[in-house]
């Protein structure tokens, strides 16, 4: 087990190197000149050229890459081209909202989705089953931003129940923090609910049809709740897998949700940075997201051993 984890961590480093090189090449080989953007509307071409030179953007690519990479190895992601602030600090400031939103969404999605999935599986073929599954396909099919605007329109502007936008740090109280996360969580969670509910239902049905459950049923020993408990436990593996895959989906959704609800998270940081070609920030955030993705999938793989004793590494 330990050897497995170490091996996986090793390959994580390799993956990060690949991501780093790829992103660096992508950014620096494509057209786009931060100097022209930073100089502002009134600057002349000659001034732009001078700024570009001062920013070191005229240096040969390998040199620029080595400069950046050697920093990264020492834990320094560089500074923003625009504000001169360290990228690590900028990401640090933005991490709490993104992590909060991700966690509330995960909890929301898993709770709702597993409930839906179990109800649907227990009543397979019934009207409830069809309605729930129909709803879950729909959750897949409507874009996050459409859901977001609808929620704002109904709950914030018409009913005035919840705030429109923004983020309150958890240090300022649990409710103020939670209040602003409710709508974004629902908007972002929809697709996720759909995904997990479907998987839960399918794996439940498979488990329910397995022999030992049938036997238990035939003997009349098992009550329905007990059956569900057994089945749910065995259905854990595919559900966890989906969560692992879903992290990628979630990260994509976070970017959009943060824009709609104006949450000052990492997703917006990187979208802003892309539009102004602030290379160090883009590179830093993508590295971070990739690392998160790889590590979460590692955790998912490890959690299999707890959920299903048959799996060993």
């Amino acid at each position: 087990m330990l050897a497995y984890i170490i091996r996986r961590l090793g390959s994580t480093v390799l993956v990060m190197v690949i991501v780093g090189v790829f992103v660096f090449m992508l950014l620096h080989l494509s057209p786009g000149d931060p100097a022209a953007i930073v100089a502002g509307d009134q600057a002349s071409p000659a001034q732009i050229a001078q700024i570009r030179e001062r920013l070191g953007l005229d240096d040969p690519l390998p040199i620029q890459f080595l400069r950046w990479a050697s920093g990264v190895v020492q834990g320094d992601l560089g500074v923003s081209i625009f504000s001169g602030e360290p990228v690590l600090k900028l990401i640090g400031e933005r991490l709490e909202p993104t992590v909060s939103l991700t966690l509330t969404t995960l909890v929301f999605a898993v709770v709702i989705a597993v409930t839906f999935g179990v109800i649907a599986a227990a009543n397979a073929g019934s009207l409830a089953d069809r309605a729930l599954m129909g709803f879950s396909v729909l959750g897949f099919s409507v874009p996050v931003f459409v859901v977001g605007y609808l929620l704002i329109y109904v709950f914030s502007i018409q009913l005035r129940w919840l705030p429109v936008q923004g983020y309150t740090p958890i240090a300022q109280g649990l409710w103020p923090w939670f209040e602003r996360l409710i709508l974004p969580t629902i908007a972002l969670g929809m697709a996720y609910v759909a995904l997990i509910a479907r998987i839960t239902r399918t794996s439940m049905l498979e488990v329910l049809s397995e022999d030992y459950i049938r036997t238990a049923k035939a003997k009349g020993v098992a009550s329905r709740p007990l059956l569900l408990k057994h089945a749910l436990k065995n259905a854990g593996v595919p559900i966890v897998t989906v969560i692992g895959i879903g992290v990628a989906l979630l990260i994509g959704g976070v970017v959009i949700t943060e824009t709609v609800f104006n949450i000052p998270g990492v997703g917006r940081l990187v979208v802003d940075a892309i539009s102004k070609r602030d290379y160090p920030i883009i590179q830093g955030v993508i590295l971070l997201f990739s690392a998160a993705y790889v590590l979460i999938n590692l955790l998912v793989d490890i959690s299999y051993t707890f959920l299903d004793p048959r799996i060993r590494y």
Partner: protein
Amino acid sequence: MLRSTRRTFVHGSMATAGALWLPKRLRAQGAGGGTLRTVMHGDLRAFDPIWTTANITAYHGAMIYDTLFALDESMTPQPQMVSQWEVSDDRLTYTFELRDGLGFSDGSPVTSRDVVASIKRWAARDGAGQHMMQRVKEIRAENEKTFVIELEEPYGLVIDVMAKTSTPLLYIMREAEAETDPMEQVTEFIGSGPFTFNRDETRQGAQYVYDRRDDYVPRDEPASGLAGGKIVKMDRVIFENIEDSQTAMAALQAGEIDFYETPPLDLISVLEMDPDITVEVLNQTGNVGWMRLNFLHPPFDNVKARQAMLHLIDQEEFMQATFGNPEYYNKCASNFACGTPMENDANTEWFERAPDPERARELFAEAGYDGQPITILHATNIDFMNNAAQIVAQRLREIGINAELATSDWGGVVTRRAVMEAPADGGWNIFITWAGGASVGNPIALAGHAANGRDGWFGWPEDELHEQLRDEWAMAEGQEGQLEVARKIQENAWEFVPHVWLGQWVAPVAYRNDIQGVLKIPEIVPFWNIERV
């Protein structure tokens, strides 16, 4: 609610305590309170208002830096940091004295050395500043409080240039920062303005925090435009960055923000109906939509093709497409925007007839247009630019011109417009932007008014007579004299067509009704004088 009340109380009592032991502070700032949350037109990306000419950074500058002169409500320059000044009889020597009580937020006093260094750094980056510097023999600090500008030849615009509100503004920094290479960003943001920049609570890309400076000494005159006493009545002003305008609107309606600088004009009617919200035009000269034509490459290296564009454009539809409500826009034929002192109607017969697609077609034919593609840079993330580029393309296609949209975000346009090569090699033929009406009204202040070829602004128009006339304008005496030259410039400009204007609009701001004292001035939104009632 409770929190903000307590903060008000704490700050209030601190201000009172200050007043007891430092008489200066008594005068300095009135008792005030609370936090003002605002959403401005864009994200504050860089903090050095000389290094970048971005408007939002100029706003940031107005919070933390002070200026030597400032424009009042009627656009007349008034002394701000300067107490008195005089010009010698030969109009060659200007002597300025700084007023008492000026200090930077680090506690050090403002000296004329700071001023001289700041002027020099600014002049290296500012078009109008460069224009002035060509005639300047020397700028020197006479003593702690006095500095002198000596000219080679008389120049009528010394005070106007130092007071102008188009970017970059002449903000006074400490000598230490002002010595920084003008092409590199300063790293400390310490000014002598009415606010300090709170970097600890600032979250880049999310919120920018400014705290009231209790030791700032305002002038005695009432506030007017950027001139007069800058009395800060709030404890704190926050620029929140809400990118999505739908979200910002909703936030204003729900009272989560107090002030929204650029509500989309299409939705103004919704805000006007809201009893809690005031909609007001602060900047009466507004903005002018601007189409730049590339002089370096066919077809717009040919004057006929450029004239064709004048005839093709119907300003009405460009305005309508983005701003909807006719209350807030108008068509304007003047090269110096409408509502400015330089507005005039010289050589505008074409405007009476526009749009005249047939004439445009003929002119393109006379220019020898041969079906080559015309590349229009098209920024998608800014509504006006997005819509205008699409309309230009459509109208060109309708007269048989092979218009191609090169679509990207504004960052892409800004990058590509700097490319001088042919459109096929990464260059361009047309791009669209806008400029502040007040700047457009000044042939020197706006970099884009220059027609000095490759040294000039994007599009690189070249016309000798135009340049001579601009110099003449700078030397002209009085507004009458300037207007006369401005007519000549325009007479000539609508022959060689340095660019095409796409209409003029004013952008109202919207704020909660409990906010009072918003100052009216083009190009900058000042946050002193504002209070919550």
